[in-house]
């Protein structure tokens, strides 16, 4: 069984947000609630500030704190290493959102981040929180795929509706291999500078394994012990700590 993981080469990433847009379209995300986001940071201060950016999907941790704290086992880990939510079991207590060090979980029943409220435009029917005119993946509540129902938490699934259909033993899901292209996660598929790689971390011959090994891939917030399955390459893989703006601190 594969252990799916992602590598993001920060030296190649241009911060174009094509990955975020593709993810939104693929997974019917609400505006502003991006499973996949590119975060921007300013390093250094005036007169030499430097803008940095940082692509951030769910880290699909090996040892996910969100899963451990879930009081209903709604958050679970698949055999192929993906952290998913069973929406049929989620009670919406939001403890997982509290426990995720990467802030990559979303609750749908909250004020819209961007006006107008798209949920008022495309009102949900039944349990679904909204009803977009285009629906991407087939609804699969047991794996947290599709339109988010009311009162539950959702997160990036590594496009589980795609990768779970990949042929067994595939070392890499890459655009360059036409045979598996349709199984490639949306953010990887659409990355123009090919800064993203997706494959089997347990397979020493996969490209992700080689990249991590040869270029010293790093993981985010290692001290939390969550052991992300998303690795970063490049010399600015360190995110500065939180600081309040000068006028407020």
């Amino acid at each position: 069984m594969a252990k799916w993981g992602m590598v993001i080469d920060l030296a190649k990433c241009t911060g174009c947000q094509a990955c975020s847009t593709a993810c939104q379209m693929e997974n019917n995300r609400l505006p502003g609630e991006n499973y996949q986001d590119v975060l921007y940071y300013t390093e250094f201060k005036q007169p030499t500030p430097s803008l940095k950016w940082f692509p951030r999907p769910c880290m699909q941790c090996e040892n996910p704190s969100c899963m451990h704290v879930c009081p209903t086992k709604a958050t679970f880990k698949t055999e192929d290493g993906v952290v998913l939510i069973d929406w049929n079991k989620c009670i919406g207590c939001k403890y997982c959102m509290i426990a995720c060090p990467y802030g990559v979980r979303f609750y749908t029943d909250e004020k819209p981040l961007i006006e107008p409220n798209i949920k008022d435009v495309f009102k949900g029917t039944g349990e679904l929180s909204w009803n977009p005119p285009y629906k991407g993946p087939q609804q699969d509540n047991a794996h947290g795929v599709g339109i988010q129902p009311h009162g539950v938490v959702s997160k990036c699934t590594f496009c589980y509706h795609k990768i779970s259909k990949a042929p067994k033993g595939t070392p890499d899901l890459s655009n360059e291999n036409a045979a598996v292209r349709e199984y490639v996660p949306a953010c990887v598929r659409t990355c123009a500078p090919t800064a993203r790689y997706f494959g089997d971390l347990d397979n020493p011959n996969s490209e992700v394994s080689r990249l991590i090994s040869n270029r010293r891939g790093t993981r985010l917030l290692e001290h939390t012990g969550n052991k992300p399955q998303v690795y970063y390459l490049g010399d600015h893989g360190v995110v500065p700590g939180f600081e309040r703006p000068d006028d407020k601190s």
Partner: protein
Amino acid sequence: MSSTIQAVHCPECISRVSNLRLGVGAVGLILGLIAIAGLLSGGHETFNTNSNLSWGLPVSTYVFFVLTSTGLTFVASLAMVFGMKDFYPIAKRCVWGAVVTLIIGFISLGLEIGNPLRMIWVIPTNFAISSPMWWMGLFYTIYMVLLIWKFILINKGDWDSDQSKLIGLASFVAVIFAHATLGSVFGMMAMRPFWYGPMVPVYFLITAFLSGLAFIMFFINLDYGVDQKNMSEGAARAMSKQLPTIFGVALGLVIVFTLAKTITGLWTNVPENKIVTQYIVSSALFQYELWIGMVLPFLMMLTKMRHDAKMQVVAGGLVVSALFIGRYEYVVGGQLIPMFKGAWFDDLTPYVPSMTEIGVVVLAVSIGILLYAYGDKKLNLSDAPNQ
């Protein structure tokens, strides 16, 4: 030990206060229902919580009231578990108060959760033993069952049978575990340094005890028309002598804890703790909580004022308000720093409770007031065993 009706010197005072409570509870219930009408139509979108700050006022209210329930059980246990007979005259009120405050907490939490009804079958069937919240649910459920069982027994006059003693002891043990697991829900979150720490369950233990004592000082005096002459002799003795002393000691400990936590927070090199502590300390709410809500009542308890019913009501009320603010600061404070949002959120997460959230609290508290008034009218809360 058989039960006797204690000689309450002014039953009509209790009746008057109960009627007043029924009125206040009914008005509050209507206001609360109006305020949460939005919840029925607009769901949790009417809350001001969001994906960065997921737990707001209803959760801090839950924490406040379930810990108050813990404290009231502790005080009742002084008589019913540890044999301190002077506390028997207020024990039944404490047990009923513990039931009521627990219900207030559960209502507040139930209206905050996305799928509260699903909780009934999903939590017991999935045995998520790695989750502190699962254990918290388990122990609070056991505690609630035992507490109600104990109340039924003492309401029948069975204060001291082997069964009654055992249930009292079991409910005391259950609430120790319940409050400790609630502390772990917050204290085990290493990714949120403002909450993280092994002392959180201990902090909850002491503040819970204080919370229960403050409720007694405030509400039991009100029950008897703010005059200890209206109480039975036993109740008046407990309220004028032992309780204010214990209340003062617990308050002193909580002040030390609060100062230690604040000073450590201001001097730490962990930014998530330091920035939040600085933010909280600079707020008027914190200054009120510390100086008016804790230091002032502590000074009052050092003087002879501690024996006076009116002063006890003032001190108890101030401490209740301070602890409520403290719970709110604690729950919200742990989420003020946005998790990994970069320049999308370049400052602390803003949060002010919405009218619906305030309505949830008003509704839950009003139901509690009505239940307590019902107890006063129908359940003979001044009862105590014949010693």
